[in-house]
């Protein structure tokens, strides 16, 4: 697992995924946490939680992403499970940095919608 591999996944998410850009910082954090965790489960071949409505929403977004990642970046299929975990943790921290911590969006922390 290298920085370059994290960057490839990050580039894909930036271009493709609207869930990282929801309206407020807490929505973005909730989506990033839920979807990256579900995607990590899927890459490990585990069955993710699908009981609560939000779990099913995370599953829907994560499944589309993982299916796409496997096609675009086939090297992901050869990674050791621990490397997959590290890779997804790296992706998550980059997403949080980009869309929340360093975002210049002045509406991100408004209390109301």
């Amino acid at each position: 697992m290298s920085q370059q591999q994290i960057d490839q996944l990050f580039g894909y998410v930036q271009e493709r995924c609207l869930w990282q850009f929801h309206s407020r910082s807490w929505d973005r954090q909730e989506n990033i946490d839920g979807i990256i965790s579900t995607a990590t489960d899927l890459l490990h071949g585990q069955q993710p939680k699908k009981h609560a409505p939000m779990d099913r929403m995370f599953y829907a977004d994560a499944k589309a992403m993982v299916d796409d990642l496997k096609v675009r970046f086939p090297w992901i299929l050869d990674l050791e499970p621990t490397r997959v975990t590290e890779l997804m943790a790296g992706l998550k921290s980059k997403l949080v940095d980009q869309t929340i911590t360093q975002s210049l969006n002045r509406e991100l922390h408004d209390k109301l919608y």
Partner: protein
Amino acid sequence: MPMVLLSCDKDIPEREKHIYLKVDGEDSRDFLPVSNAQTIPGTLSERGCAFCGAKLVIGGVLKDTIQMIHGPMGCAYDTWHTKRYPTDNGHFNMKYVWSTDMKESHIVFGGEKRLEKSINEAFDEMPDIKRMIVYTTCPTALIGDDIKPVCKKVMSERPDVDIFTVECPGFAGVSQSKGHHVLNIGWINEKVGTLEKNITSDYTMNFIGDFNIQGDTQLLQQYWDRLGIQVISHFTGNGTYDDLRCMQQAQLNVVNCARSSGYIANELKKQYGIPRLDIDSWGFSYMAEGIRKICAFFGIEDRGEALIADETAKWKPKLDWYKERLKGARMAIWTGGPRLWHWTKSVEDDLGIQVVAMSSKFGHQEDFEKVIARGQAGTYYIDDGNELEFFEIIDLVKPDVIFTGPRVGELVKKLHIPYVNGHGYHNGPYMGFEGFVNLARDTYNAVHNPLLKLAATDIRGGQRKVFLEAAE
């Protein structure tokens, strides 16, 4: 490359904060245009008013609702019939316009009585219609007409009618965007949860932020029917007032236009725990992805794959025919906001088109985060662009086609650059698989239309007296 100060803006240097040229290696952490901010004095903005955002974009789409505009005739006329959102009941919303037609004496003596009379007259004239939205406008808000008690009085006298009020005069915000916000928040607080409808499927959703432009909603509805998903409410394409009162019953909120309608999806999540799933409905690859996500949520993936396979078999060869002929075409997108990020990658991936400049009238910084993430380096990203800036940008990026509204469209036609109506479409619908072929066809017809080049030919040569254009 930081923000750009165009030479036409030398006397309004504040505009620099609104125009960004992306270069490789940069992203929205480095530069993000200022947006949803007051228009700078001296710039000829293309924006609409806040009232227009509520009425023209969202409320006026409904197929069974009188849109009573409490103000002078112009406010009503200017927000009627300029968007093409048909309905399956004979286009009631586009056939009629309602106004209290405020004149000087009403402004001086107050307009509440006139409003009450107009509401009753409208219901009397249209006895089959029992739903109404009443809007304030600048003049009636300024004189302090209190429209809510008037509507309550009418509702108490006419128990079979229901009225919703939108108090968002033109001056209430910097652009149309404020009107979207006021209508969204007013509706969730006052109307959602006041009615329940019959549930006919195990799978239910609201489809939010699609306004049936030239039939978009009706085209997508075929997909939901084939998938066996009950759409509780359409916010608001081909939608009804009462369906929107039942939004709380859906299991999922699917959001297309996050700018005009994200607020209500956020509140439905907060107040009712209904998840918000954002999708792109324009483009083959996006539409397929959206269907896959919705089906994954409901656990009906097989139905989704069958639908995608059918539609792809039917429409992909046609899309590819256009792609072959559009590859490398340069497009500019000057619309409201979300279509910038919905379209830039879909026309690039599905049609081989390069988007070279994008301007948003009412997008917020969230929209610019999305579009800068998706758009190319070397492309201009503009907030609240003005006419002179458009001329200068055209010189810089030399687009082959511009997706914009009819007003700017007329402007660029004079430069012999084809335009396609990016708001109301040329020959839509544009959503879904079939719709994107329509978009491709209109783009192809625009780019390869010989008429504009012929129109530029002038056999008089040097004998013609040339008048200076305003922009020169």
